[in-house]
């Protein structure tokens, strides 16, 4: 561990050296020593820029319409694309140009048209991100008459989010689960939940096979202990690799997010996730109007549609605004700890440095940023 300057133990499977997120030479095995420097950040950024350049080249600077339309092409492809868009656009155009429909429905059609053909959020410039967020807010207003606030805030510098879970403290109250559902506007019909609390028998160790993640009785139950799982926001996430359209990716602050509008719903990421961290909208998600959380983020809790993936984002709408995720705030026992791994004074760093922490399925080389510990 000490030779590659890692803040935590790492198998280093399929990982390049540049990904090391801290650089201390103290040799501690369970955390950093608080001397992490900022130099590695530049290399991170540089690498990201180079990687993006190499993989998408021109598309990087273009997005939205430009990604689709402003490309060099010969006449044949141009005709092909024109025909395709004409066919699809005919409906929208006929609505937006119709004299009998009002301004609002014209605007709606315009927004739908632009939303259908916008680019991948990951590749958008900040202006384009804002534009799509504005469209979505306006669209929601036109449809329901209610105003929501939606953010497109990017990852901040020198931030890498991490999470720790105290197994000794969790009593299985499931307040985190409920808070998560309410905060993140999850489908109520299918009772979608990002967090699963596993009830385990004392004396059997961490035996997930015999654990119950769907209990309906008074807690804490005699002779049991509890362990929560959710998306671990791996540093080397297998789900991101397999996505055929790059609809899911790791943000600079370590959050693994999904662009719900870019996802094609193939569910390959779901098969690739070793932690059961991903959820699919098998039907149109329904949230009663009164229960909708209006404080939203594009990558977080905005309303999803049918047939796309979603997952825990460490409540990106909260965490990037400097707040704790809803599960952390709701936990009555203080079993959940969240913070910035790059901040030497954060609680999460204290836990990593002073507790015997471990992670699940470390042998898979996924590098989760979610640690378990006991008092």
């Amino acid at each position, binding site marked *: 561990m000490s030779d590659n300057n890692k803040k935590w133990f790492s198998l280093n499977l399929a990982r390049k050296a540049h990904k090391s997120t801290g650089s201390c030479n103290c040799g501690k095995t369970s955390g950093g020593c608080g001397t992490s420097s900022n130099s590695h950040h530049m290399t991170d950024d540089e690498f990201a820029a180079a990687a993006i350049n190499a993989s998408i080249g021109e598309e990087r600077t273009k997005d939205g319409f430009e990604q689709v339309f402003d490309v060099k092409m010969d006449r044949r492809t141009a005709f092909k694309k024109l025909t395709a868009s004409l066919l699809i656009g005919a409906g929208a155009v006929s609505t937006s140009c119709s004299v009998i429909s009002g301004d609002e429905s014209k605007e709606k059609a315009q927004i739908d048209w632009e939303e*259908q053909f916008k680019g991948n959020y990951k590749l958008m410039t900040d202006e384009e991100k804002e534009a799509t967020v504005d469209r979505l807010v306006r669209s929601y207003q036109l449809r329901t008459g209610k105003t929501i606030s939606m953010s497109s805030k990017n990852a901040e510098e020198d931030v890498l989010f991490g999470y720790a879970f105290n197994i000794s403290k969790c009593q299985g109250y499931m307040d985190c689960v409920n808070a998560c559902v309410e905060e993140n506007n999850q489908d109520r019909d299918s009772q979608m939940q990002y967090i699963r609390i596993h009830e385990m028998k004392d004396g059997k160790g961490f035996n*997930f096979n015999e654990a119950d993640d769907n209990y309906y009785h008074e807690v804490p139950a005699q002779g049991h202990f509890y362990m929560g799982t959710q998306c671990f926001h791996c540093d080397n996430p297998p789900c991101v690799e397999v996505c055929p359209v*790059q609809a899911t990716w790791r943000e600079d602050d370590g959050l693994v997010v999904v662009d719900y509008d870019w*996802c*094609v719903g193939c569910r390959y990421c779901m098969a690739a996730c070793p932690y059961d961290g991903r*959820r699919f909208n098998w039907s149109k998600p329904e949230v009663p109007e009164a229960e909708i959380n209006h404080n939203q983020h594009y990558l977080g809790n905005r309303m999803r549609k*049918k047939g796309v993936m979603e997952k825990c984002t460490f409540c990106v709408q909260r965490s990037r605004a400097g707040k704790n995720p809803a599960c952390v705030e709701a936990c009555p026992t203080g079993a959940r700890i969240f913070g910035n791994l790059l901040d030497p004074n954060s609680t999460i760093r204290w836990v990593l440095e002073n507790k015997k922490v471990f992670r699940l399925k470390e042998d898979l080389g996924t590098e989760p940023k979610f640690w378990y510990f006991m008092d």
Partner: protein
Amino acid sequence: MKRLKVFGSLVKDSLDTITHGSKKYHIWMGFLTFVMLAGMYCYSIQLEHGLSVTGMTDRVSWGLYISNFTFLVGVAAAAVMLVMPTYVLKDIDFKQAVLIGEGLAVAALIMCLAFVIADMGGPSVLWHMIPGIGVFNFPNSMLTWDVLVLNGYLFLNITIPFYILFRHYQGKEAKSSVYIPGAILSVFWAVAIHLVTAFLYQGLQARPFWNNALLGPRFLASAFAAGPALIILVLAIIRNFTEFKIQDKTIKKIAMVVTVAAQINLIMLISELFKEFYAPTHHSESAYYLFFGLDGKDALLPWIWTAIPLNVLATVLLTFHKLRNNFKVLFFCCFILFIAIWIEKGFGLIVPGFIPGPYGKIAEYTPTGIEIGVTLGIWALGAFVFTILAKTAIGIELGKLKYKKKS
């Protein structure tokens, strides 16, 4: 201009051929159309309500569609077992069969693509996957590899027979210098489509049941057994119902291919079973679920215990020359082998990958009626496409369809 004219005449003639036929032919096509329409109706329900109308859940997120997709990639790849001896090794025996085999490959690939699209949550944004217009996560995602190789193989299998038939239609010999390079390429390509499809599953460290080095080779072996087995059955039917002559020795040679592939497949199965059950680890649980059930959940038991005996029986029967050369036994063997591999490499492979789940949860999967309806509809689509292709090809090969210069 002249070529265009010939092509127009070919389209007209083939339309004429496929709309005329015996009563049995019309009943067959009518039946397929009905099943396709029923499938489309089921799919419209799925579009309306989402994939919740299927039996898939967050616990078992791939089901019947992806199972059939996986199996059919194998069937498509099997056309190569006929292409190679004919075009590359110059074994003239197969020439009659090879056009049928390639037609089968086209039909199977169309079914594959239909199954993948049926499985998509958002078919309306599928353009995100088109290279150049969307964002194509190549080479990281094996799914993008699969899109490339499947469409490439489809292109090869359409163009090669089309060229040959187009020449024959005009009463000319097909130039071997034109189609041989394509044929050689398609031999490698066929192996690639199946290996890449296997890598789709093999590369997932999250699913120990699939994360197994034998998966790819085993895909190939079972494909080269099931695919030619289907070709034998189809050739038998064509021999019965049309004047198209297929010699006994052609069928016997394909039977040899089936036999060898089935034997290799069986050896690999034994190797897999040995690994899973001699020293069972945590990672053997999926295999336990498949073969013996876990915690009283045993939905796949009847299926796998049908597949294994059928597989063994067919392989043993085929191994004996006397039995294999008896066509009644051969057709029976091909039929049961096809069924056995469809089960084993379809949901016998896909569903246990998800059971038990990442944290040991055992949630079973049962397809719904709508899912089965869509599946049958896509199979009917494949049969429909194949019938059209085969009928035109046979018409041209028999010389019934010929380009007449109107002067």
